[in-house]
């Protein structure tokens, strides 16, 4: 669904503020060309965002890559396209339609495409990419690959990118295959020279070096989360491959192979287990954490569905576990390569019976790194499963974010685990007894002392850990679990609140919509509408969530699902009045844009709500 373009697409000479979209066929090497473009912009000190819209397929289906050059450092989609590189004949028609008025279309003019020229309001730039590559390269596969590198050269000329920087990046990428640097550079140069010769370069929309990316990296959330797991000291990684979570495990393996192999013995200080399914994967995590190792798995919605039974066991038998849910579009298989936030309710209450789980909601790769570490601390402190709900947008796209920092004084919180000395002083271990009044019992590890041995079970048990079918004994444990839940509220990350507008109107959201919301707030402010913003970062909701909800008269709940799941959670778990909540729901599978939010807010604040708007504007 095309979103209304709120900003004029192409004013003269828009420097470092435009969006390029590249339409290709997957499996043709376009990913390297796109990364090359984005990184060369990033290295020129210009904030940049990249989003990959790819099919659930290996080769031959349409794929798009969106690069937003954004001097203001916005991290969301702009919602419009200024320059379209239409490399896929199959999607030409829709790609051409998508270009904003005043924008540009770059296409392969080797074959005439008269239908393309129907739009009068855009500039069409034909480059005979196929012909150039056919004349200069041999082999079908090479020609296809080079055609995509060639458009990167064209864009380098049109956008005034530094070719030396492009070469530098290629040299890094192909450090072990120098001949590839030359062939790729040749393709870049072909495109670059053709564009310089035939068009007036650079375009009014172009890049100019800035100094706004130092202290920043371009990283995807799955890589950052995996790095967090390495730093948190995770030693057991078990998973079943599923898009879009697989790259998290791949990254963990890559980092662990580099940083976790004992130099002298060559032994691996981690266990990496590809499970037979998600049920087994989470079972292994539970088994490993029960036995004192930090363990995790990564999955997506269908995997969480399968893990439900075990999550209930982790909750009731009080075993720590860390699960990353890289959310994708559901229900069922859904659209595996598109993004959504539609597992919120599933994760919050996974499994039968009275269950509830600690969930963390990172908004970007930086938070994925830190929350990975927090997840282990919380899981072990609270002796329960912690689910980190990232999504495909965060997990698989490269985001510009601040440098990740590591505090060398960090020590993991292993929770209430009795050591041998403590065990010897005990008469007996009462596993589920609330000695400290925080709802958390003491546990022990196998292999330490027979006195501390206890029996873990998902069947009814008393506070002493014994099997029971006694109502009072059962209820005591169930009620104590709620006490632990209250403890969790104090330990989970607090919401991020921006109340600088001092408005009666607020936005409530979570996760990857953060960038779009910040941008939308700027746009709204320019239009005289100031709004506050609370980004929830964990379930259970901390006290500050309740306060923010109470302090605002109208709340827009922005989320990426159809059923307003965050709104449901808020109404279930806080005392907020339902009538105050307005949902802005984006569930197309593409990341939410600021335009969507601005429109949604303005539509609601139209005449009947004028008073509130006034209030907001005055705020």
């Amino acid at each position, binding site marked *: 669904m095309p979103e209304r373009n709120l900003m004029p697409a192409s004013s003269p000479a828009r420097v470092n503020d435009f969006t390029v979209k590249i339409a290709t066929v997957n499996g043709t090497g376009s990913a390297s060309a796109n990364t090359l473009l984005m990184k060369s912009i990033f290295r020129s000190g210009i904030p940049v965002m990249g989003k990959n819209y790819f099919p659930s397929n290996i080769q031959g289906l349409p794929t798009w890559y969106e690069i937003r050059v954004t001097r203001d450092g916005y991290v969301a989609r702009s919602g419009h396209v200024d320059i379209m590189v239409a490399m896929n004949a199959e999607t030409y028609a829709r790609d051409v339609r998508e270009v904003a008025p005043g924008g540009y279309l770059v296409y392969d003019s080797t074959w005439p495409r008269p239908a393309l020229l129907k739009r009068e309001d855009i500039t069409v730039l034909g480059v005979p990419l196929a012909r150039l590559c056919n004349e200069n390269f041999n082999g079908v596969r090479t020609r296809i690959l080079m055609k995509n590198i060639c458009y990167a050269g064209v864009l380098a000329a049109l956008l005034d990118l530094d070719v030396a920087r492009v070469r530098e990046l290629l040299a890094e990428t192909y450090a072990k295959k120098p001949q590839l640097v030359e062939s790729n550079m040749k393709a870049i140069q072909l495109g670059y020279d053709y564009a310089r010769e035939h068009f007036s370069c650079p375009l009014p929309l172009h890049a100019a070096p800035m100094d706004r990316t130092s202290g920043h990296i371009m990283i995807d959330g799955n890589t950052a989360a995996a790095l967090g797991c390495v730093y948190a000291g995770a030693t057991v990684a078990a998973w079943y491959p599923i898009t879009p979570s697989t790259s998290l495990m791949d990254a963990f393996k890559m980092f662990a192979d580099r940083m976790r192999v004992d130099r002298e013995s060559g032994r691996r200080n981690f266990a990496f287990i590809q499970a037979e399914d998600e049920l087994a994967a989470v079972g292994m995590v539970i088994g490993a954490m029960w036995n004192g190792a930090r363990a995790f798995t990564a999955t997506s919605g269908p995997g969480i569905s399968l893990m439900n039974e075990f999550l209930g066991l982790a909750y009731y038998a009080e075993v720590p576990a860390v699960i990353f849910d890289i959310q994708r579009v559901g229900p069922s298989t859904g659209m595996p390569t598109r993004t959504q936030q539609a597992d919120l309710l599933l994760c919050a209450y996974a499994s039968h019976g009275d269950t509830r789980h600690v969930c963390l909601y990172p908004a970007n790769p930086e938070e994925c790194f830190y929350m990975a570490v927090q997840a282990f601390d919380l899981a072990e402190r609270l002796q329960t499963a912690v689910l980190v709900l990232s999504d495909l947008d965060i997990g698989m796209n490269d985001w510009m974010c601040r440098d990740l920092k590591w505090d060398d004084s960090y020590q993991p919180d292993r929770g209430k685990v009795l050591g041998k000395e403590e065990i010897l002083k005990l008469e007996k271990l009462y596993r589920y007894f609330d000695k400290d009044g925080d709802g958390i019992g003491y546990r022990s590890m196998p292999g330490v002392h027979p006195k501390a041995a206890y*029996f873990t079970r998902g069947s009814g048990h008393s506070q002493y850990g014994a099997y029971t079918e006694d109502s009072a004994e059962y209820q005591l444990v169930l009620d104590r679990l709620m006490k632990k839940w209250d403890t969790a509220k104090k330990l989970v990350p607090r919401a991020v609140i921006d109340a600088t507008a001092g408005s009666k109107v607020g936005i409530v959201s979570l996760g990857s919509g953060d960038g779009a919301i910040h941008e939308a707030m700027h746009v709204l402010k320019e239009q005289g509408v100031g709004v506050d913003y609370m980004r929830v970062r964990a379930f259970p909701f901390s006290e500050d969530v309740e306060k923010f909800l109470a302090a605002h008269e109208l709340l827009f709940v922005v989320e990426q699902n159809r059923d307003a799941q965050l709104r449901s959670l808020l109404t279930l778990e806080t005392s907020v009045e339902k009538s105050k909540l307005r949902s802005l729901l984006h569930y197309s599978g593409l990341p939410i844009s600021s335009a969507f939010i601005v429109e949604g807010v303005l539509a609601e604040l139209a005449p009947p709500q004028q008073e509130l708007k006034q209030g907001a504007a005055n705020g």
Partner: protein
Amino acid sequence: MTFIAKPKVRHPSLPTNALGLTRRDYEGALSTLCAGCGHDSITAAIVEASWALSLEPQNVVKLSGIGCSSKTTAYFLSGGHGFNSVHGRMPSIAMGANAANRNLTFVGVSGDGDTLSIGLGQFCHAIRRNLNMLYIVENNGVYGLTKGQFSASADIGTKAKKGEVNCQPPIDPVLLAITLGATFVARSFSGDKQQLVPLIQAGLKHTGFGLIDVLSPCVTFNDHEGSTKSYAYTREHYEPAVHADFVPLEREIVADYAPGETLPVVLHDGSRIVLRKLGAAYDPTSRTTAAAQIQERMKHGEYLTGLLYVDTEPQKSAFHVVNNTPDAALNSLPFEVLSPGSKALERVLARYR
């Protein structure tokens, strides 16, 4: 029925093992299974084998799924941690726990429903990983806790208590395990303690996945005329075996039977279970001939018992060898060894600039 702790009365004349522990020290809570249940005999055999091996109780991890058999992990070795997980998923818990600390002894107790129906997948994959554990299937061909439905090990033609006849072919855990590459595969009978105890000892000492399929008839739901896993009739016809001493894992367990001797279990309908001790011609180190001989006997309604297959180099494919983990338990590695520190992070970030 609530948890009943067994009184710890230690008689001074009770024999002690190398650790100075008596058999009592290897017991657990009182069994809540039906009186005379074969599973209780297996529990007793585990107690006997663990005591005889002088295992440190705290170094034994007991794992199970759901079902009558899975309850039994509470009935032995109260000095070891137990984990009664969810139905059919015990192998994954065992895998994780073993990954965390490879230096413990892992004993899984499961049933034919827990292993061959709901848990068939995890059972197979634990074998493929050659997870170092002893996995005991207490096999009675029937679902006890839900009152008498056929399990996947029920033989064709066997009759349920309510009269229904099973028409689906059984899944045999022993043949399956041999096919999947298990490194220690045995079959025994709950009533044959002399055979079972040394098998458990051998299985506990085996490096890699050890399976013992123990025929353990259900006295309540599969002990009637027409059942091919009747326990009552088995007892009547069971001849006490000559005790076979435990011999370390590398060698075949030697039974004091004349080659080819069988223990016939003739049921009322004329069908038979024949427990056959290993004969001289049987080679338990050959996967293919072992499987062929077991199948050949099955055609005649006979079950070969004993250590049916053993890999003489099981460690080659053991999980931790393949994973190349250190000898020390992963859960014992100091945090400083695991977390690479801020300097290393700076080097990592250079790749993302």
